[in-house]
C-alpha cells in the first residue's frame, strides 16, 4: 500500500465514498450470487469480487459527461460510473424495470444517461466502440474522455491492437484500462503473452503504458487521473495496466483447476482492496469504526431495497419481444 492517503487531495467525504462504492459493488455481487444459487437469476454471470478498486479508482477522475465502455465482468464498472443497483438488479432478474427492460441481462447493462456505454459479451469489443465515442467527443468538441475497461485476455485480440493504434494516430481522448487479473477464463496471461507487461504494448503504438497496483484504489485513481488529464488536453490515449485478482471463477461453471487455493488465499487475505482501504482510512482517522458499521448497514439496506424492487417488478410483456429492434 502506498502513502497516497497523505498526499491525496481527496476530501474525507470523497475517500469514504470510494470505500462505500467498493462495498456496494461487493455486496451487489454477493447478493447476485446468492440469488443465482436460489435459481432466481438464470443464464450466467461474471463476478468481479476482489477487483472493486479498479472500477472505483478509475471512475474517480470522471465526470458524468465522461464515458466508459465495459466488458463481460462489468457490474463494478457500472456501479462505479453511477448506474443504480435497483435497475441493475431488476435487469438481472429479467424485469421490465431493468436498465435494458429485461432484454440484456448481466452482459449488456448500459446506462447512457451517466455515460455508461455498456457492458459487452465480446472480448475487446468495447475498445473500438470507446474509440468511436472519443471521436465524437473530439469532432463535436464535447471535451469528454472515454475509459475502456478490458481484461488481460482482451490484450491478445486484434481489436485491442487496432483500437490502440487508431486512438493513437488520431490523438483521441481515451484511457485504455486493463484489469490484469492474471487469467483469461482459465488461461494464465503468462502462458498466452510473451511480453512481461501488458503496459509494454503501449510502446508499440507510441502511447504511454503505466502499471499500477489495481487493489489500491488511490493508486488507481491517481494513475487514471493523469491519463484522463492527458486525454482531456488533447495529448491522446494512455494504456493503464492494473494488477488485480478475481476471487471467484470466470463464471458459474468454473472449477478453478488452473490456479491454486493458496494463490487465491493470498490475494484474499493479503490484498483485499476493501479491507486494505478501510484499514488505511481507520488508521488515518478519516473513518471511525462506528461510521464503518453504519456504512455496512446502509449498503445492506440498499441491497435489500434493490432486491425488493426487482422481485416486485413486472416481467416484460410478451409484446415487447419484437420492440426496439429498429429505431
Amino acid at each position, binding site marked *: 500500500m502506498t502513502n497516497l492517503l497523505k498526499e491525496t487531495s481527496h476530501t474525507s467525504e470523497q475517500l469514504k465514498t470510494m470505500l462505500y462504492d467498493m462495498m456496494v459493488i461487493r455486496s451487489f455481487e454477493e447478493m447476485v450470487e446468492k440469488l443465482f444459487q436460489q435459481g432466481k437469476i438464470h443464464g450466467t454471470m461474471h463476478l468481479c469480487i476482489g477487483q472493486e478498486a479498479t472500477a472505483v479508482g478509475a471512475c474517480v477522475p470522471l465526470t458524468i459527461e465522461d464515458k466508459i*465502455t465495459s466488458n463481460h465482468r462489468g457490474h463494478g464498472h457500472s456501479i462505479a460510473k453511477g448506474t443504480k443497483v435497483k435497475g441493475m438488479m431488476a435487469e438481472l432478474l429479467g424485469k421490465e424495470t431493468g436498465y435494458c427492460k429485461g*432484454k440484456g441481462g448481466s452482459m449488456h447493462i448500459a446506462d*447512457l444517461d451517466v455515460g455508461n456505454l455498456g457492458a459487452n459479451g465480446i472480448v475487446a469489443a468495447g475498445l*473500438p466502440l470507446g474509440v*468511436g465515442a472519443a471521436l465524437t467527443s473530439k469532432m463535436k468538441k464535447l471535451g469528454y474522455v472515454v475509459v475502456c475497461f478490458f481484461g488481460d485476455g482482451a490484450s491478445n485480440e*486484434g*481489436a485491442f491492437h487496432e483500437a490502440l*493504434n487508431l486512438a493513437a494516430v488520431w490523438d483521441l481522448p481515451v484511457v485504455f484500462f486493463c484489469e490484469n487479473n492474471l487469467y483469461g477464463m482459465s488461461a494464465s496471461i503468462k502462458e498466452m503473452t510473451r511480453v512481461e507487461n501488458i503496459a509494454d504494448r503501449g510502446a508499440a503504438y507510441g502511447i504511454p503504458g503505466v502499471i499500477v497496483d489495481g487493489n489500491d484504489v488511490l493508486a488507481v485513481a491517481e494513475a487514471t487521473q493523469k491519463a484522463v488529464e492527458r486525454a482531456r488536453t488533447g495529448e491522446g490515449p494512455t494504456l493503464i495496466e492494473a494488477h488485480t485478482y478475481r476471487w471467484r471463477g470466470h463464471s458459474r461453471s468454473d472449477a478453478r483447476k488452473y490456479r491454486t487455493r493458496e494463490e487465491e488465499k493470498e490475494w484474499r487475505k493479503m490484498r483485499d482492496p476493501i479491507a486494505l482501504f478501510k484499514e488505511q482510512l481507520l488508521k488515518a482517522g478519516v473513518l471511525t469504526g462506528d461510521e464503518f458499521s453504519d456504512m455496512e448497514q446502509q449498503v445492506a439496506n440498499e441491497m435489500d431495497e434493490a432486491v425488493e424492487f426487482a422481485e416486485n417488478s413486472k416481467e416484460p410483456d410478451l409484446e415487447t419481444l419484437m*420492440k426496439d429492434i429498429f429505431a
Partner: protein
Amino acid sequence: MNDMRELTYLEAIRESMSEEMRRDEDVFIMGEDIGVYGGAFGLTNGMIEEFGPERVRNTPISEAAISGCAVGAAMTGMRPILEIQFSDFVMIAMDNIVNQAAKMRYMFGGKTSVPVVVRLPGGSGAGFAAQHSQSLEAWMAHVPGLKVVQPSNAYDAKGLMKAAIRDNNPVLFYEHKLLYNTKGEVPAEDYEIPLGQADIKREGSHITIVATAIMVNRALEAAEILAKEGIEVEVIDPRTLVPLDTETILNSVKKTSRVLVVYEAVKRGGYGAEIASMIAESDVFDYLDAPIRRLGGLATPIPYNPTLEKAAVPQVDDIVVECRKLMNK
C-alpha cells in the same frame, strides 16, 4: 424533377453523400485510402478537398477498429459513413456489425440508436478473383437489426443513399462494382427513396422477374430480347432487401402468374431463396401457373479467368433461357 443530368452510379453516390455532409455536420465519412487517393474506386475523389481531413477521415487498414469506431461514434451522436474498400473485407469487421451495431438498441432496451451507413462495393465481373468479388448480402439480411440496400442504377443510388444516411439504424449499402460507371438521369435536387419501396423497372404481363443489383440490368436486357419473341417480362427491383417490399412483388406475381428470381450471390442460401419462400408462403401461391424458379450464382468461389468468372454468375442469356422454360418454349 426539373434539373436532370447524366451521372454515373459512382458520381450519384458521391453527390448524395456530399449533399448530406453539407446539410448535416454530424455526417462524415471514414475508410481506407478515401482521402487524396479518392478510395479504391475513386468514389470519394475531391471530397477531402471540400470537407477536409476531419470529415473525410483516412483510416489505418484496421477493419476491426474502424468499424467499431464508426459504431461508437454513431451511438454518441455522429452519423458516420464507413467505406469498406471491398465488401469482402467486411468479414474482418463482422463483430462490430453483427454483434454490436445490430443488437445494441435491442440489448439496451431501446435506449440507443446506431445511425451508421456501411458502404460495401461488391459483386464479380471485374477480374478481382475470389476474395474481392463476393455477394454476401444474404448474411447481413439474416441478422435482425440491420437494413440492407442494393441499388441497381444511378438514380436509385442517390435517393437510397440519402435515405440510408438519414435512417437511425445501421444500413449496409451494397454497391456493385460493375455499375459504378453506368450512367443514368439523376436530378440535381434533393430526393430520398424510402427504404422498403420496390420499383417496377419494366412492366409486363407474362413473367415477373425479381432481380437485385446488377441482375436488374441483365433482366432488363433479357426482357428486350424476350419481347421480340412475344414474352412480356415485368422486372421488379426490391432495391432494399431489409425492409422488403413484399406487396409490390406479390401484386406483380398475382398479375403474371409466373416468377423468376435472379441474383448474383450463390443460389444456395442466397437472398433470392427468401424472396421465393415469401411468394410460396403467400396467398399469391394459388395464382401461380408454374413453379417458382431461381437463377443464382454457382456454389463456387469467384474464379479469375474471365470466361470462368462470367460462367459463375447469371448472364443475360441465362435469364432468357430460364424465361423461355417458364413459358414452356
